[in-house]
Structure formats: C-alpha cells, structure tokens
C-alpha cells in the first residue's frame, strides 16, 4: 500500500510537467506573440527584436521551457511580460475566488444529489423517482452558461437587482490584497448565482450516478445478507447502500473536477469574477505566456492531486479493492 502511495505521489511530478510542457509548446504555436501588444503604439521591428531577446523569446522552445522550469524550482513562477506582475502573486490573489466557487458548487451539487438519489433509489419507479430522474436529466442537458443567463435574468435584471451581476466581495479574512471589499453577505450575494449555475449541472450527473449505483448495491449481495441477518430496511439501506454507493460517487466527483475547472472558466467569465478561470482565459487570449504557464501549472496540479485523493479514498472505502 505504501509503495503504491509513494509511486502515485512520485507520478504526480512527471504528469504535471508533461501537461505544462504541452501547454508551453502549444502557446508558442499560437499565431502572434505578446510583444506586439506590449509595445503597442511604440511598435517597431527593431524594438520588437530587442524586446524578444530581453525576454528570451528568441531561444528555441525547449530551452525556454527548461529556463522556466529552472526558475520554478526556485519558487519563481516568472512574471508577466505584458504587465510585469509576478505570476505567483496573481495566482494567489485569484485562488480564493475560484476555490470558494468550486467548493460551494460541489456542496450544492451534493446537497441536491444525495437526497434526490435517495428518493430515487428508495422509491424506485414511483412518481417521486420519475420526477427526480427527469429533473436530473434536464439538469444534465443545460449548459452552465445558460443556467447562469437565466439566473441573471431573474435575480439581477429582474427583481430589481437583488443579486449583483458581476464583481466580487471577499469573505472576512480571505482578502489577499491591501484594499478589499469584505463582507459575508456581500460575498454570498456574489457567489450564489455562479455556484448554483456550476453546481446544478454537477448535481444532475451525481444524482443519476448515485441513484444507479445505490440501486445496484441494493440488489447486490450486501443488502441481501444484511436483510437475511434480520436488520430492518431503513438502516440497511442508509448504512450499507449509501456508504457503498459513495465509492463511485467519490470517483465521479474526482472526474468531475476537470469539468468543474472548465465550467469555472465559463461561469467566471459570465459573472465577471476575478478568479483563476478569467485569469486563464484572459492570459491565453493575450498570449501572456508566463501567466498561461502559471494557470496550467496550478490547474494541472489540482487536477492530478485530486485524482490521486479520489483513488486513495476509493481504496479506503472499498476494502475489496487493493492496488498491488
């Protein structure tokens, strides 16, 4: 077990590096570079050549990557060519926003999915089940941005602007800057719609999965045995079925992280939130190489680490699964 764990931990590094290398190379394949935007009105060919030299953009791609790596190892994530801002600093400023969004979305998703799945599994093929399944089916089929637009329509443009349509207010204690808007209610106002938009889609998928895996467990040997032992229905289901159904749920939640990150990009763009999603997409479009690297690094890292955690949890939850 420990060997497996060690092996997986070591495996994180090359995976993350591979992803950042691919992103590095891909960004250099994008037509255009940041130097034109940097020089702006002052653009002349000679100046452009000089600037490219200064920032090392004229070296071969792999050499540039190794240089980036070298700085990274020393804790230096580089600085944006366009704005001069250190990438790590910007990433840390944006992180609380995205983190809060993702965590709250998952919480909302689970809060909807678990009861819905329970209803579906326990009262299979009844009205309640059909409703829950249909709603889940609908939720799976709506893109996040459309949910977001509908929410905006009702709560921001309608209802006299009950909820703000953009911006961010930080939770007390999480402000990473000198000047912040900080307030609990303000934060809730700003995070609610995006989190719902992102969470509803996940909830739908989770409901369907949780329900079917619960059904499967109910039919399987566990429950028959437990029933045979004479335990009553309710605790049997709740204790055994739910616990066992959590295994695939946890797995799927881990898989969902990829879509959460992607969904966060879209939702953050729609609600103009100062998070990592807008950071990444703005950086990609502006060809801000260093910032894109920072974005790729943190998303890849989060993605890989979460997958590892999911696998480990999976191992703990299901005693029959052991990895050699």
């Amino acid at each position, binding site marked *: 077990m420990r060997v497996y764990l060690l092996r997986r931990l070591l495996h994180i590094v090359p995976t993350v590096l591979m992803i950042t290398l691919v992103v590095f190379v891909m960004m250099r394949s994008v*037509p*255009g*570079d*940041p130097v*034109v*935007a*940097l*020089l*702006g*009105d*002052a*653009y*002349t*060919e000679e*100046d452009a050549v*000089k*600037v490219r030299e200064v920032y090392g953009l004229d070296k071969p791609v792999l050499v540039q990557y190794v240089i980036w790596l070298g700085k990274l190892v020393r804790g230096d994530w580089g*600085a944006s060519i*366009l*704005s*001069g*801002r*250190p990438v790590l600093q*910007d990433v840390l*400023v*944006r992180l609380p926003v995205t983190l809060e969004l993702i965590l709250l979305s998952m919480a909302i998703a689970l809060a909807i999915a678990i009861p819905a799945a329970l209803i579906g599994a326990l009262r299979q093929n009844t009205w309640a089940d059909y409703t829950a399944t249909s709603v889940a089916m609908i939720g799976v089929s709506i893109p996040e941005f459309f949910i977001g637009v509908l929410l905006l329509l009702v709560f*921001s*443009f309608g209802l006299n*602007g009950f909820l*703000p*349509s*953009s*911006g*961010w207010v930080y939770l007390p204690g999480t402000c990473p*800057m*000198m*000047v912040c808007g900080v307030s609990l209610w303000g934060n809730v106002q700003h995070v609610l719609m995006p989190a719902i938009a992102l969470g509803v889609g996940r909830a739908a998928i989770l409901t369907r999965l949780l329900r079917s895996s619960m059904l499967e467990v109910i039919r399987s040997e566990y429950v028959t045995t437990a029933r045979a032992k004479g335990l009553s229905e309710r605790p049997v289901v709740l204790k055994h079925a739910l616990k066992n159904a959590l295994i695939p749920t946890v797995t799927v939640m881990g898989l969902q992280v990829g879509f959460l990150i992607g969904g966060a990009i879209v939702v953050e763009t729609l609600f*103009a939130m*100062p998070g990592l999603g*807008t*950071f990444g997409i*703005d950086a990609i*479009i*502006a*060809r801000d190489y260093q910032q894109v690297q920072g974005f790729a690094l943190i998303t890849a890292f989060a993605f890989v680490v979460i997958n590892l955690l999911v696998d480990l949890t999976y191992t703990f939850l299901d005693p029959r699964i052991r990895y050699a």
Partner: protein
Amino acid sequence: MRLPARSSALATLLTFAWVLVAPADAQAPKRGGTLRVSYGNEIAHLDFHTAPGYEMMWVAMNIGCGLVNITPDGRFVGDAAESWQVAPDGLLYTFKLKKSVLFHDGTAVDAASVKFSIDRLMDPNTKSGMRSFYESIHSVEVLDPLTVQIRLKHPYAFMLHMLAAYRTGLVLYSPTATQKFSLEDRKQGKPGAVVGCGPFKLVEWVKGSHLVMDRFDKYFVAGQPYLDRVMIRVIKDPVAEMAAFKAGEIDFIASFSPEHVDNLKVQAPKAQIMTGKETTPMLAAMKVTVPADGKPMSKERKPHPIFGDLKVRKAVGCYGIDRKEIVKIAFKGQATPWVGMNPPGTLDTVDVNHLCPYDPAKAKAMLAEAGYGPSKPLTFDIIADNEKSVFNVIATVIKEQMARLGATANIRVVDKVSWMNTTLQDGPWDMYVEDLLSLITLDSNGYLSNSSSTWSHPRHNDKRTDELYARYARELDPAKRKAIAKEIQEFFVENMYWNNISGSPFYMVAQPWMKGYTYNAEFEVHYHTVWLDK
C-alpha cells in the same frame, strides 16, 4: 411680536446673508469619499512612458502631472508649470515651474526632473510610444532649479498640445524613484515604484481586480483633490457595467459602449451622460501594398492584389460605401458620417464628405474599369476585432453594401491581439474595421499615417504624406495651417490611403451626485476637481 429695531435689522441682514450664501453652499465642494470608476478594458501596466492604452493614460493623468494641460475649448493652463514663454521664432520654449511641487516620494519637481523626463522619453532605449512626438526637440536645458528651456530643431506648432495631451501628455518622472526601481517594478505597480506629481498617489494595483489611488496630501493645489480615494474596477461587459451603475455600485463609467447608451438612459434616467463631437476616426482601412519578397515589413513593396489599384480603392471606399446607412445602423444615427481622416471634433478638421458621395452606379463602373465584373467578381476579407462589437456590425453592413456592387466581402472576427499582430507585422489582410486612437490635432495622427510608421497599416509608403504632415506641423500661422489641413484631408481622400467611415462616438457616464468633472473627451480625464454630493 415686534423685534427691537437693532435685532430686526440684524435679522434682515442675516436673512439676506443666508439667501446669498445658501446656493453657494450647495455648490461648495464636499471633501471626502471614494470615487468608484469602471473601465471597460484592463490597464496594461503602470510604466506611464511605455504602456499602451487609454486605461493607463487616464490613470497616468491623475497619478502623474505634466507641464501644461488643455481645456475643452483649447486653452492651455499650467499644471506643474506656472507660466511659459515662446520665442517669436517658435524655437525656444521657456517654462517657469511652480514652487513646492512635489513627487509622491517627497522629492521636488524641478527643472532637472523635467529634463530627465523628456530625455528619457526621447531615448530609443526607453521604447516609448511617444518618442516620435518629441522628434522636433533639439535639447532641454536647465536654466535654474525652477526654469527649464526646450530648444527645438525646427518650429513645431503643436508643442504645447503635445506636452498637454498627446496620449498622456508629458508625465514627469522622479529621477530618484526611476533610478531606484526597475522597469518591471514600475510596470507591476510595486509600492513606491510608481511615483508621480499628480493629485493622487498609487496605493495598489491588482490586475483583474482593481486599482486604488489615494489623495496626495502635498498636492500643489491647496484643498485639492476633494476625494479621499479613487477606486477603478474593470467591468468588460457593458450590460454588467450598466447593472452596477444602476445599482449605485459605481459612480463613473470612463468609456461607455455607444450601443447601450439608449438603454442606459432608460435604466438610469438621472445619469449624467457626457459626449461631444467625435474625436476618434472609425476606419475601414484597405491595404495598399504588400511585401514584394514575401518578408513582412520588407522595404520592397508591390501593390496589394486587390486594393493596390486606386480605382478599386475609390470604388469600394469612396463611392461604394453608404456612410449614412452605416451610421444609422451601427450608431443609431448618433455619429457623424465622415470621409476625412481627421475626425469632426479634432482641431483644424475639414469636411470633405462631398468628395465621396454614395454612388453605387459609379462604384460599379469603376470596378468594371478595373477588370471586375460578373465573370471576375471582387472578393475580399474584412477583419473586425472583437474589442467592440460595433466593428462587426459595421463590417456586416459593408458586406451588404458590397453585395449591391456585385462584390463579396467575407468577415473574419478576431481577437484584438491577433488583429494587432496581423496589421502591425505586415500580415495578410485586405480590409479592417477599427477605430484606432483619438486625435486632438491632425498632427497627432502623423505617426499613424506617415509613410514609415509601423502603425501606418495600409503601408502606402507615399513620402508626400510625410511632407504634408511636416509642413502642417511647422506652420505657425493658424489660418495657413487650416489650409494645409484641408490639403491633407483632400490628399488622403484622392488617394484613398485611409478610408474613413464616420467618427467614433465617445461617452462617459456619471451618477448625479458626481460633481465637478470637466469633460474633455478622451484627452483629459482628471479627478482632482471631482467631489461627491452625498
């Protein structure tokens, strides 16, 4: 009850005094408060001498100070300069600085720092976008700590305009701070690195979040600025901007999308909407030459396969485009159809619309002469960048109008960075729709239009434009200048080097409680006279 005589007189006096004083009281600026501003685009970075973009400029005008400023009616007022004299031959400008003007780091703004700043701007190593404006300067001399003299190589009629308002105008840099901190420090807004002599000092800049500037207590105008703080947020989506404005979350929108102005008037009827005659040209530029050897920016040119032919340019740009229709659809009529390169609100502008009336029959005939017709239809690409959705709208209308001539225009929408890369690096393009930069004088357009500038996208390489601009800039007699301006406008139209459609309207929106702001288009955005009436 009758008051004793003396007290009744006093009472009357007091009443009078109240009547006299009260309205003035209501107008006296209140000190304090935070002005919350919204920008539609990100600030590039905070090295004022090299950063591109209006958003940076409007910050630079408040954190930094210069020698002079310009009022909306074209008069010059002193900023750090108390007074100035121009020698009769126009070659010597002597500025006397105000005493006790300080940089935010406490060092004095003196003649040496003025020299330092101008030298820095002129230095090729600084790579400032404003370097070309200082081309006429021979040298800067320090006469005494408060007197600085600028010597020109040749007369330059727009020296003061340039120092006041070409892009940021001259922004004075503190020699101490500039030497202590690196370029990257300034770019990122590191505390202490961005130092100016303006009414506000930089507190914090977090790209993607906000920029905060606080009152500089030792500002050289006593009592100003009234505001404690200015906080700038970037809200890219106009609808979100409107929603935030309506909810009272922001006080001032620095540049509001013209398409949504009508909507805003409905949403926020009490808003102060400021605009004026357009000072930015809206172009449908056509590429005139391409590199002869295929290498971008090559000195060897050959005519563009389609628009290298003057007849085609005139057919499409002059007679084939219905400017009125474009203005009606894209701007709902709230812009001026305009053929001249110099926008309606710019100094010395001349109306040359009569040179290019909409005449599709003539356009078709000219195209036929150039060899295009049903057997060989004219086909070209229009690129529009997505910075403003109006570019795509205009491109679509042009496409329609081209269809009436039997020509096909294909529209490509690209992001701004791609557009810049393509046009600045002599990439392949036929026509683009964009509104470039605002022009306070025709002279400030020189760097766009003259033959060698990288920003002269059509690459017409016609040296005659350089001569015209030079003559214009050196002519000190305003009447003669106006004549040259007319010549320039007509020259461009005759050769269709720059195909202008209309002016590009500019709007600023303020809450009713924001008072004291002086609207001067994109050129001067100053918060030191602003106060909040709440």
